């Protein structure tokens, strides 16, 4: 069951953003957005 029930206005809600960041940090430790999407980044990445 999903505990969070708020939808919308996320970018004006720093506390909710922090909560989400912590959730992602716990679930995807050390991973990047591209890792989550199962994309293989180029060796030397974007720049």
């Amino acid at each position, binding site marked *: 069951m999903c505990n969070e029930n708020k939808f919308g206005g996320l970018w004006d809600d720093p506390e909710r953003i922090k909560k989400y*960041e912590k959730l992602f940090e716990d679930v995807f430790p050390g991973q990047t957005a591209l890792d989550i999407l199962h994309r293989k980044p180029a060796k030397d990445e974007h720049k």
Partner: protein
Amino acid sequence: MNTNSFYIDSCIFLGTIIKDENTRACKSFISRIQNDVFIGYISSFVTGEMINSILYDDNIKSTIKSEILHVILDMMISTKLKNFVPINNDMKVYSELRKADSRISESDIIHATYAKILDIPIVTTDGMLLKSQGLKKHIDVFYPSDVL
């Protein structure tokens, strides 16, 4: 070409929440969208790619998946976006771009196809897209901080 409109890759949204080297650039870019400086376009493929990657990740507990999916939906609902829906014959552009770089995944070519149809650049942190010379012959591909 619309100079303040951008097609937004999935990794930009996830990049705002996951802390990696691209987070600052992704957050700044999304704030420009929220402040009406930029117009941001997505399609069902952008949302779908994120949802798919969570739903079918065997390393995430099912109880946690719903929380992660909630975050993704909250991000999409909270961001001022225009949703692009292709029409008949639009997808002929796909074949053209597919030949441009065979190393790029199908979903990324779809993103690029929609950006080309809209005649706007795509914003991404994906090195494969950013470095593809073949793709750049057809569309502009930018790292988020390069357009700020």
